[in-house]
């Protein structure tokens, strides 16, 4: 296939936390809101005059300082973030907002605060921590709204004079939805038998929407969508199986690349930083305030394993099944970052349930933050692809 026109630009955005679009937006006077967890409602961080960036630590090498403060038992994502923060890599941010999504993330940001690793020279810089619901119900919704008001909207208004009115929130949702619609439309090409976009390309584009100001990306996404409509897929499909990747935080583009280089096309992405359900539009009505509707959307669609009620737990697995069907996955790769407690349990149960109750071939793996070109992971994915092929042959899929 011909290279996508803006792919190199999107890839370039992912090379630095403080990418060129962030710099440009800040020069234009916008406030940069850093965050670290998918349970932080994104539109509330993208009000007129603000934009969000979800922190990553691209090109991570040594994590010695992060490991000293957090020990080697915390996940590498948190250690890499702390390391980068101590190096001064996030000093561009104007504030950071984090929920107690998991203990490790919470400790990571607390260490940043205690070490004064962010906000150098920024008088208005603030750290905010918020409680988020662990169940999807009315009580959880009330909590979510209150926490978003107290720990996102009020601090942005009080420190930076940001308009946090319902009208402003609705404008932010409209912009958010435009990005989501474009990502959805681009992602839909993955459903094709001969896909005209690879999982890697899609991951790069999706990832960019989490780390760069959305308004600046919209024209590029629109152009990419148009380009894809006429893009010719390779005459011979280079992939031997279609897989859905499910699991914890993946902001490492090399991981998806490795899976695809091993013969498996990543047709669906149900992981933090992925598009399912992170890039579902939030449909607002006029009867209810926007904040309530945003919180409800995040709470109801949330696939984070910290949601502990049975209905949500069951829904996580049925969601994977539904997406696997919709995107035509032959198998599922459950991944977790090593030392991630929530996904360690979800991976264990999910992989059994998807295999035994829904009948999918499932590969369960744990991985480091930056996978580079891990031979072990490549071997495991290759073996998984072969096992899917064998199963297909045994079912008579190839000879009718």
């Amino acid at each position, binding site marked *: 296939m011909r290279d996508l026109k803006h792919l190199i630009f999107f890839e370039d955005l992912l090379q630095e936390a403080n990418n060129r679009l962030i710099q440009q937006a800040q020069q234009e006077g916008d406030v940069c809101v850093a965050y670290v967890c998918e349970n932080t409602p994104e539109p509330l961080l993208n009000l007129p005059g603000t934009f969000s960036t979800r922190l990553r630590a691209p090109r991570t090498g040594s994590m010695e300082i992060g490991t000293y403060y957090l020990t080697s038992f915390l996940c590498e994502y948190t250690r890499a973030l702390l390391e980068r923060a101590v190096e001064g890599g996030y000093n561009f941010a104007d504030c950071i907002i984090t929920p107690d999504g998991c203990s490790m993330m*919470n400790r990571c940001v607390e260490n940043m605060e205690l070490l004064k690793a962010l906000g150098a020279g920024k008088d208005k810089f603030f750290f905010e*921590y918020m409680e988020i619901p662990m169940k999807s119900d009315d009580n959880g919704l*009330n909590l979510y709204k209150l926490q978003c008001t107290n720990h996102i909207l009020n601090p942005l208004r009080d420190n930076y004079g940001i308009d946090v009115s319902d009208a402003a929130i609705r404008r932010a949702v409209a912009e958010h939805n435009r990005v989501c619609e474009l990502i959805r439309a681009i992602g839909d090409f993955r459903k094709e038998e001969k896909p005209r976009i690879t999982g890697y390309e899609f991951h790069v584009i999706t990832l960019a929407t989490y780390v760069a100001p959305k308004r600046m990306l919209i024209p590029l996404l629109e152009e990419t969508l148009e380009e894809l409509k006429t893009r010719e897929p390779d005459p011979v499909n280079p992939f031997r199986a279609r897989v859905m990747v499910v699991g914890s935080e993946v902001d490492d583009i090399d991981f998806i690349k490795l899976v695809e280089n091993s013969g498996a096309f990543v047709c669906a992405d149900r992981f933090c930083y992925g598009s399912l359900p992170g890039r579902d539009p939030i449909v607002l009505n006029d009867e209810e305030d926007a904040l309530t509707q945003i919180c409800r959307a995040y709470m109801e669609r949330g696939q984070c394993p910290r949601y502990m009620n049975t209905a949500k737990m069951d829904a996580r697995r049925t969601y994977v099944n539904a997406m696997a069907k919709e995107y035509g996955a032959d198998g599922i790769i459950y991944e977790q970052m090593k030392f991630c*407690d929530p996904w360690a*349990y979800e991976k264990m149960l999910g992989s059994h349930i998807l295999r035994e109750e829904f009948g999918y071939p499932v590969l369960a793996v744990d991985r480091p933050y930056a996978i580079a070109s891990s031979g072990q992971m490549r071997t495991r994915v290759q073996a998984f692809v072969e096992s899917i092929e064998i199963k297909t042959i045994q079912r008579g899929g190839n000879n009718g």
Partner: protein
Amino acid sequence: MAKEIGADRLGDLYIDGGKVRRRREWRGLADTMYDYSRWLGIMATLGKFVMKPRNVKAMFRYRWMANYLAVPMMVDRHTQGLRGEYLRICHEEQDLVIKDVAKLLDSLFRGDRRIGNDTEFSKKVVLVDENEMTAVMMGFPTLKCLSRETPSTYVSVLLNQHAAEHYIDVAQEFGLAGDVCPMPEAEAGVSIDDDAPVLGACAIQCNTTCDGSLLGNGVISRRLEKEDGIPVFQLAAPLRHREDDVQEYAAQEIRNAIAFIEKHTGVKWDWKAYFECARRVNYATRCRQEWLEMNRTPWPQVFGSNLALYTETNYMAICGKVPEFERADRRITKLARQAYEKRKMAAKEYRHRAIVWGVQSHFYMDFLVWLLNCWGIVPLTDMLSMVSTRELKEEDTPENRETAIYDMAWLTENMIMRNRTHGGYRVLLDELWEFTQQFNADMVILWEHMSCKALTGMHGMFEDRARDLGIHLVWVDHDLFDPRIISRQGVRDQINNYMRTVMREEPLDPSLEVLHDEESW
């Protein structure tokens, strides 16, 4: 063999590679007779338990029941070297806890569909987590609040250090990563192994201490709801428990949990019973505070495992529901006052005053006794004993009923361990140094439970602060339920090395420095 404290070489009582010790300790005539009579009392409790055929049947059905053979040995481990009031305080606590666990086991097997199958009794049972504050049961005096995880994993590991290994392996063979906390991992393993009694009208789970605990519950509830047909309510206690803007959420969770229990048991909440329990909780709190006050002086009385294990049981599992614990509180306080007035000491020499912080190694709960006997380090208090001291409303008025909901929510949020490991760094990091000042401590023994992410996530900050304040900080690594990772001697060696190389000290009792107790219960 001596009557005096610290005159014996306690290490000589150990047999290399043995499960039990060589012989009982001689403590002088009066103390030995007292200790022996209490030993007989424990045997009577156990004897009464095994007289029931259903309990014998359970011994053969449930793998973890074999650990209960080690009950007398557990008490002996905790009474090592103790004399006079200290010995009596230890027995007051331990013997009562044993009786309570025996009752718990008896009730579990009575209702268990596989053993006693008393269906009418089972309808009155509400299952709760092991590590769950049972405040929400304070107003249900006619219901039985039973925890299956307490006897299958929690107490089992106290009795036999190797008790959880099988269940940890089961969970890992099922696909669970090996780097999660072994406590919820073992509890999940019991469920995967289908090795827990099946009974109850409903169950209340809670996001107790950590992410692992929260997620481990998902494994257990799956079997409970989908196979055993027992409805489960997941009680979400906010993590940022010191913040005002989470209290309404917490209170509503309590209201919802009570409504759930009423619906599934048909029993109505009883305010009279609640306020009676609240009065007992307040009494327990006042007693604990008095003990801690004494521990700030040069003559601490209720400390070490005497404080830790009892607080854990009384504060969380009992939560005012069992009158016997109020009587025990009274007797313990009387003994403590008596010893305090006489300026008594539990060891021949107190060299260092230590705050024990972090999550203790469960397979080595008597480590605190060893610390005192071997090195003269007094464990003045520990993280798990520094729990809520808030006075609950005791009088039944309409206003107090509303406040009571918030009191229960507060207690639930402030369960043991999570009240320190969650809620922001202030409760874990900053308050530790405040306590070292309040207790005039010169040392912090910091358990580094390696799979506890909330705790190890402050590792560097603990070191930085200790360095700034000039406090001796001794790290003790362990893996909570799994002595295969770091053994009991591995735990001791970390103290031994620090005391010899940094403090340049010799042990009070050198026979305790190295013990070959790898195979011991």
